[in-house]
């Protein structure tokens, strides 16, 4: 049986053609990095609520042991990536543009790499109930590995019925990043197995596996794996290499021509979309009882000696990761940048003294050959190239005017909130205006204002309610008073009328005598 490779039928608006730059990190196989000297695990590595540390300093932990527990509905567990001793729990620099510190659990590995007790025999997912699979996904700390690190349990739990299709995102459209590409090349069968687990779980009638056409090796390997699996529910689609093809909204549009209405999720349209890395993590959790304690990260860029993909433990210090790849090419970092993620949507890191986190799909050591320091912006010439490439069909130049002049009402009228901050407009701008920076700032301001508005609304409501209550009390009091008054009046009146009556009677008694 031959597996059809189909082309995506539709296309999202805009988009930019970028040099892939992936070949520099795809020459070698994924290398497994040995246990580093220490592991630093932030207790918040996911979207949602921060997990709570459940170990203490000095505790001996085993590989795969739960060390921080999820809180609430949207959160994720964190596990010890190897066996060792907890040496500290407290603030430590985490990968963030503003050198943020956040609570981390630090483990000094004992080098024995002893697993916590796990079932001896491998599982068969066919015999697991949906609830059991969901529990595994939750317990083992699985989050979206495409970069958004949204807890996967929260995503798959509500998707158990009425799903039109499961979509597997293997687009990986951002330049330099190749971890998904390599994962598909080397773990194709595992990914297919993961898809089967998800198909069983969700009951989706079909699965669309989408890969950008600049990854022919990955496509042919997945095709091979599909042929072997003989599962007709899984369809393979190739996508044109066009940034940002891998964006959730753009991918859905390319495959189905459907747009997610404002404020809705793909799930509302009947689609569940997962990244290939997440699918592999789900498969490892279900089949091998392995929590999310490691991930593949692309270490690349002109500033690193041997660009490659590395399978490293979560919590590995970035500096050791770089050293594992041969270290930096140049000792001076003045002209270099360290970027978590890709060159368009990544985060610029101030220091390499941070750990590898679940969200880190790529570590780009960028020399001036790769990226460019921000140029002096010139006046906007309204060329409109930005709107030609905008995948959200916006008019970035109008948004720029309004963001710059702090006219946020107009910016919202031009649908600023639909901006996905992909950076395509920025890239094509001949005036080198940092558009995305303006949009981010404006979005932040709008959010703050909304929050302020909500707060002031609450305060106003509270005030109005209090006024109402006071008014009510005053009214009641006044009514009571009035009632009392009228009661007294009645009394005097009755008294008076009684006297009158007696007088009348007396008079009438007298009258006949007069006659």
């Amino acid at each position, binding site marked *: 049986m031959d597996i059809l490779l189909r082309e995506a039928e539709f296309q999202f*608006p805009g988009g930019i053609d*970028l040099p892939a730059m992936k070949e520099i990190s795809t020459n070698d196989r994924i290398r497994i990095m040995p246990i580093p000297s220490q592991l630093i695990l932030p207790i918040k590595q996911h979207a949602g609520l921060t997990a709570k540390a459940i170990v203490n300093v000095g505790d001996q932990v085993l590989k795969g042991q739960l060390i921080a527990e999820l809180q609430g509905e949207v959160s994720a567990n964190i596990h010890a990536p190897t066996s060792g001793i907890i040496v500290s729990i407290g603030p430590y620099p985490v990968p963030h*543009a*503003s050198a943020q510190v956040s609570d981390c659990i630090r483990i000094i590995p004992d080098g024995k790499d002893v697993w916590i007790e796990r079932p001896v025999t491998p599982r068969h997912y066919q015999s697991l109930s949906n609830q059991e699979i969901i529990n595994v996904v939750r317990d083992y700390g699985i989050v979206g590995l495409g970069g958004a690190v949204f807890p996967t349990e929260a995503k798959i739990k509500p998707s158990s019925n009425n799903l039109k299709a499961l979509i597997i995102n293997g687009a990986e459209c951002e*330049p330099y990043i190749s971890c998904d590409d390599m994962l598909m090349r080397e773990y194709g069968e595992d990914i297919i197995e993961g898809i089967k687990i998800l198909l069983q779980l969700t009951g989706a009638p079909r699965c669309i596996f989408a890969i950008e056409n600049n990854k022919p090796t990955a496509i042919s390997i997945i095709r091979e794996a599909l042929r072997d699996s003989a599962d007709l529910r899984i369809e393979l689609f190739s996508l044109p290499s066009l940034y940002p093809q891998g964006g959730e*909204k753009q991918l859905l549009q390319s495959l189905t021509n459907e*747009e997610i*209405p404002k404020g809705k999720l793909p799930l509302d349209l009947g689609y569940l979309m997962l990244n290939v890395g997440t699918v592999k993590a789900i498969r490892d959790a279900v089949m091998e009882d392995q929590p999310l304690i490691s991930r593949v990260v692309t270490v690349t860029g002109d500033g690193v000696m041997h660009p490659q993909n590395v399978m490293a433990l979560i919590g590995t210090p970035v*500096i050791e990761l770089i050293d594992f790849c041969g270290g*930096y090419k140049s000792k001076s*970092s003045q002209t*270099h*940048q*360290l*970027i978590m*993620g890709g*060159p*368009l*949507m*990544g*985060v*610029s*890191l*101030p*220091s*390499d003294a941070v750990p590898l986190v679940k969200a880190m799909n790529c570590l780009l050591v960028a020399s001036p050959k790769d*990226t*460019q*320091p*921000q140029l*002096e912006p*010139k*006046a*906007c*010439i*309204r*060329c*409109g190239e930005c*709107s*030609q490439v905008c*995948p*959200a*069909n*916006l*008019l970035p*130049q*109008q948004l720029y005017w309004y963001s710059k002049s702090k006219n946020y009402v107009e910016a919202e009228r*031009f*649908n600023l909130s*639909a901006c996905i901050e992909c*950076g395509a407009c*920025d*890239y*094509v*701008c*001949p005036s*080198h205006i940092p558009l*995305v*920076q303006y949009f*981010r700032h404006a979005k932040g301001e709008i959010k703050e204002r909304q929050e302020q508005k909500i707060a002031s609304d609450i305060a106003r409501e509270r005030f109005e309610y209090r006024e109402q209550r006071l008014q009510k009390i005053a009214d009641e009091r006044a009514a009571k008073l009035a009632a009392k008054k009228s009661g007294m009046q009645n009394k005097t009146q009755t008294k008076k009328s009684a006297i009158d009556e007696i007088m009348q009677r007396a008079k009438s008694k007298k009258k006949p005598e007069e006659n």
Partner: protein
Amino acid sequence: MYFKVLSSPFLKPKNNITKVMLHVLLALLPALIAYIWYFGWGIFFNIIIACLSAIMFEAFALKVQDKPIIPAITDLSAIVTAVLLAFALPPLCAWWITVFGTGFAILIAKHLYGGLGYNIFNPAMAAYVVLLISFPKEMVVWLAPRGVDLGLETVSVAQTIEYIFRGAIGNAYALDAVTSATPLDILKTDLGGMQTMQEIKTHPLFGSMGGHGWEWINNWLAIGGFYLLAVKVIRWHIPAAVLVSLICIATVFNIYDPGHYAKATFHVFTGAAILCAFFIATDPVTAATSVKGRIIYGIGIGLLIYIIRTWGGYPDAIAFAVLLMNMCVPLIDYYFKPIAYGHKKIK
């Protein structure tokens, strides 16, 4: 190790304004050569005068506003304005007219509105209209194109320079010996004189499609325009809308009464319709921004060109059509926005 922190995206930008403007100048080059071939060296000197004065005025305007001078001059936008204005001027044109026009374009039409990116009106066209209204006599000094014998004397390079700097060649009467009307002038005056299209077209100034010489300049301009499309400096929407609407309305009237209304090809290949479609209407600063808006804007220009040419007071209408549509741009931008992602009305 510590690294510098920037805001994403970090990729090298693909383009810059200088590159865009250089493409435009490059695209005008073949037409310039054709222009010189047919109408002599006048335009060449006009361009040099216009460019020098544009740089001067630009530097002055920036200096007065305390803005950095070098980045604004090296973006070449003032040069493009100057060159486009020179393309619109007659080849024999006194130096002070060119300087005055460039001054108006740079100082008033561009910098009084806030400089590059803020001007509402196309500076070159605004300046052209001011010149046309202020100096109607000087603005119609056209030469007969090469290869057309109207019994006029040809003008040498030396005479051209003499005219540009002295405002006369030899004595004042000699001017009549060398100048002629443009095909659009003839069309206008002769149609007014109750001649039919067929009779007018026998005039030696008319070529196979448009005006003699003009049609070749226009061909080269069109090729330059296609070059700009190929390098994505302009998009197809505005040129297509201008030309298609002009062709449509001209064809309708030509079919209705071929004796009084010229063919569409004549309208396209004479005068500045092609220059307008590819180089003037596409000026991004003063055009509409969305795709829909640009099509409306282009159609407006195409129709106005025909209306003013046919029923208006001036033989050519590019500048007026462009300025009138420039005025409509804010309105067009307001009403023709693309529908943002996720904002489609649900059926």
